[in-house]
């Protein structure tokens, strides 16, 4: 009776999923139809504006992945537009190399753009937000200065003629269709990335970096991919821009333009494709509507940005998010289905125990852990309790690789765990949750859980870009697994809901579902019961017991002694970084020192 219903859930979700997919695609299809039919009702002037909007969108679509998804404040991206424009123009003009056909020049520009996108973006890995923003501004200035100075190649102040594409793209409307086609392709590609594990991983890096690391997401590799892509399309946009302008000079590449691109994304909303698309169209078209407004356009963009940041941080995308305006049920219960765990977690892995031997770690003058021994065996629930400041969370952070112990050994099945490699833990099937839930608020619950399975995807970034079969298989697999995990923890009805609408307790269970995606050999939980009602704590306990029974070794750091004594096979009590007592729950409950120091009464 229970099983068939559970089996029904995933396929129903799939049907709903495809209905959702169609409604999500509708605005894009409408824009596509509008764009194709545009010459029928728009005059030549609006054709130029529309072409310009398409060119800008080619750049913004790539930048969207950097700014909107990865959350990097790259303000000076006009540098790549400049680079692409000059590369294409110089190659077709033939004053440095023999004149190349425009399409080839565009491809070469894309390659160079990719390389420089990487160079421009790499400091993001080392620098903090504001610092990185300033360096991108500096880069934009540098590129313009170089264009001015390198007169033999770029023509200096006098500039160089833009490329002319051969028929049928040489007429204004022909060129419009060329740019529109490229814009449509870019929309499709970035939408594919957005709906892939890479897109979700980017939002995880942006909003919950710590959780992303714990899920095995490698920030450098992912950011590198996005910067290369973004640089390449920006350079292509540059080539198109040069053709549209017929002639480029350094003064056409102003910081105002860079700000326009950046603001279009923010107004559109981060983590969205449709939002920035509408934002770009809006900001391109707006100054054309009223001549007095033209001088004030940058002022208005900035004012709009301020309003968005303060009032509607989600931008246009948030305004259009009708799905998430529907009220949620007010009395929601989390009812886990532990019986599904066997199917989710599969057969128990052959891992040995996770052992800590005489581990010690101090911060400055404070000895956080001093000679700790701990052993977590598969199939068992091990509790770690103690007063505040006794080193519980630190222990967890040492195991999950955030801190390296100064003395002692942490080993898995006898082999020492590598130090400072928190993003490798996921590959070793060590999963964890956090003291404060680290969730991507702007994404749905389902997407948050799918983030947990990122490392299980097989498709490469390029395959996702082009929506090749392996990408689609990945998505189906991750979707089904995540739904199963959500059903197992009891949150399947909230799957499509935006995560920041959830109650605190639901977020905690979401984190558990995310951790379960790894099919972990070891699951580390940091105060999972904090903020839960008594009913929910009981259900949590049952869930953790079932997880252990499926073969996972569970370590629970907690403040609720009742929960610990109920579900744990073994308990370790910490005090001031040292083991105060270790044993079965019964032994601990009656241990005199533990009672005095901690349990009271």
């Amino acid at each position, binding site marked *: 009776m229970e099983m068939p219903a559970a089996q029904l859930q995933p396929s129903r979700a799939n049907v709903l999923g495809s209905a959702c997919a169609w409604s999500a695609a509708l605005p894009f299809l409408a824009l596509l139809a509008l764009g194709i039919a545009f010459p029928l009702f728009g005059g030549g002037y609006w054709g*130029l504006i529309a072409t310009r909007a398409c060119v800008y969108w080619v750049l913004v679509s790539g930048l969207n992945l950097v700014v909107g998804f990865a959350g990097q404040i790259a303000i000076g991206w006009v540098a790549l537009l400049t680079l692409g424009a000059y590369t294409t123009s110089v190659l077709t003009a033939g004053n440095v190399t023999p004149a190349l056909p425009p399409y080839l020049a565009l491809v070469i520009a894309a390659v160079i753009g990719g390389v420089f996108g990487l160079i421009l973006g790499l400091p993001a890995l080392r620098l903090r937000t504001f610092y990185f923003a300033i360096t991108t501004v500096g880069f934009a200035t540098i590129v313009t200065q170089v264009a001015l100075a390198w007169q033999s190649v770029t023509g200096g102040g*006098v500039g160089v003629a833009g490329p002319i594409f051969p028929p049928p793209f040489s007429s204004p409307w022909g060129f419009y269709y060329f740019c529109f086609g490229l814009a449509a392709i870019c929309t499709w590609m970035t939408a594919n990335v957005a709906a892939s594990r890479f897109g979700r991983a980017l939002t995880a890096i942006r909003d919950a970096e710590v959780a992303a690391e714990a899920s095995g997401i490698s920030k450098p590799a992912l950011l590198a991919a996005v910067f290369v892509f973004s640089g390449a399309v920006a350079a292509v946009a540059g080539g198109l821009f040069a053709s549209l302008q017929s002639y480029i*000079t350094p003064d*056409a590449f102003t910081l105002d333009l860079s700000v326009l691109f950046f603001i279009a994304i923010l107004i559109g909303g981060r983590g969205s494709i449709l939002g920035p698309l509408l934002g770009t169209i809006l900001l391109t078209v707006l*100054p054309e509507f009223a*001549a*007095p407004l033209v001088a004030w356009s940058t002022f208005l963009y900035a004012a709009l940005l301020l309003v968005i940041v303060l009032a509607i941080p989600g931008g246009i995308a948030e305004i259009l998010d009708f799905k998430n305006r529907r009220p949620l049920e007010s009395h929601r219960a989390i009812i886990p289905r532990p019986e599904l765990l066997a199917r989710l977690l599969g057969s128990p892995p052959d891992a040995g125990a996770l052992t800590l031997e005489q581990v010690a770690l101090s911060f400055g003058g404070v000895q956080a852990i001093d000679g700790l021994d701990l052993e977590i065996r598969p199939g068992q629930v091990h509790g770690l309790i103690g007063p505040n400041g006794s080193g519980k969370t630190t222990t967890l952070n040492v195991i999950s690789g955030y801190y390296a112990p100064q003395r002692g050994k942490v080993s898995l099945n006898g082999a020492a765990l590598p130090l400072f490699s928190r993003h490798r833990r996921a590959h070793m099937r060590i999963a964890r949750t956090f003291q404060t839930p680290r969730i991507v608020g702007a994404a749905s619950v389902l997407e948050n859980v799918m983030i947990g399975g990122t490392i299980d995807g097989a498709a490469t970034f390029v395959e996702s870009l082009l929506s090749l079969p392996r990408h689609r298989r990945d998505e189906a697999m991750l979707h089904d697994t995540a739904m199963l995990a959500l059903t197992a923890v009891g949150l399947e009805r909230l799957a499509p809901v935006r995560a920041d609408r959830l109650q605190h307790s639901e977020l905690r269970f979401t984190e558990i579902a995310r951790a379960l995606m790894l099919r972990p050999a070891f699951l580390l939980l940091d105060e999972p019961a904090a903020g839960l009602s008594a009913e929910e704590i009981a259900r949590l306990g049952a869930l953790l017991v079932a997880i252990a029974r499926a073969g996972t070794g569970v370590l629970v750091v907690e403040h609720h002694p009742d929960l610990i004594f109920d579900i744990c096979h073994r308990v370790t009590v910490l005090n001031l970084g040292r083991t105060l007592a270790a044993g079965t729950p019964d032994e601990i409950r009656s241990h005199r020192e533990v009672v005095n120091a901690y349990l009271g009464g």
Partner: protein
Amino acid sequence: MWMTRRQMLASASAATIAGGLAKPAIAANEPILIGYLPALTGPSSSTGIGINRGIQLAVQEINAAGGVNGRQLELITRDTQSDPTKAVNGAAELTRGQKVSVVFGPVNSGESLAVVPLLARTNTPQVHPCWVDSLTDPQKYPMCFRNAPTNQQIGGAANRYVLDVLKRKKVAVISDTTGYGTASVNAYVPMLKANDADVVYQGNVDAADPDLKPELLRMQSAGAEAIMPWSVNAGFLSRIINTRGDMGWDVPIVGQTTLGSGQTKALLEKPDYWAKVYPNNFRNVCYAPGGKLSDRTGAFLDRLKSAKIDLGDTLLWWVALGYDSPRMIAEAMKNVGPEPAQIVGFLNKLKGFPGVYGDISFTPEQHNGYPDDEVVMVEANSLKDGAFNLAPGYSA
């Protein structure tokens, strides 16, 4: 189909003129549309603002006198904001949207470089006052005419003054890092060298650099006998003049017309620093050796005074250039009609159109209409009512 754009301007005179333009003629004939692409805002807007004052006055006068063959002229303005992107947008709107008969402008070279090919594609006649040499090409752009001098003419006059009149051989050429500045230095240094000058210093300096003393010291130690700055940035030019004065270095400064503008004057540390500064200017708008303006120009100045057009913060030749342009276009239309081919045909045969700014002539092979000998050098500190005296040693 689309809205008519009017650019409302800040100056009081423009407001009265615009008021005059607001109502087209009662006659059943439609107005003749003239597209206009000035840079009225943005970093390079001083020229555009000056030209604008003249153009508005001219259009108002023409319309008050009955227009062109009974049809009123209507100026359709799109402010380019000193941005080539907006200039292209504006040009597209004027030609494909508003369907103007002829376009005047843009006034900045960077914008013109982008707009000229577009206007050629739409077969719209164009008259522009930009200096960059490559902006006219009777083969490639048969409908594009320039009613101002070229960079070659400007540089040539300045170089001749330094070498032949002041008889200095060691020259320092300096400009800022803008497109105009770098293009000018690139054009003028070879011209100097071809005339046996010794270019002892050649540099592009960031206009925002607050201290130009190292540059001038370098010029001095290289033995420069004249400084030739090429920039439209009043701050930059004033710093050069001020530094020369602070150093007490007695060499002439010969160069861009903006050396003599009211804005540059306002930024000088001492009024006497303006001595021995010789900017380009144009014969018709200068005081002849007797101290008098030509009748044409005198009458023009009177008209400006009665229209309350301010000259204190701009240059007379900008206003004059603006004034001449619609009059030349109106002349063409009056004689042959407003069709593109007609206008181009007329302009190709134009001989000595009597503008206040200069006498313009074109041929089918020569679309640069300004005569060589009307480019002159003047004395900056002789500024009065927007006009200057010719520089010393200049033959009439």
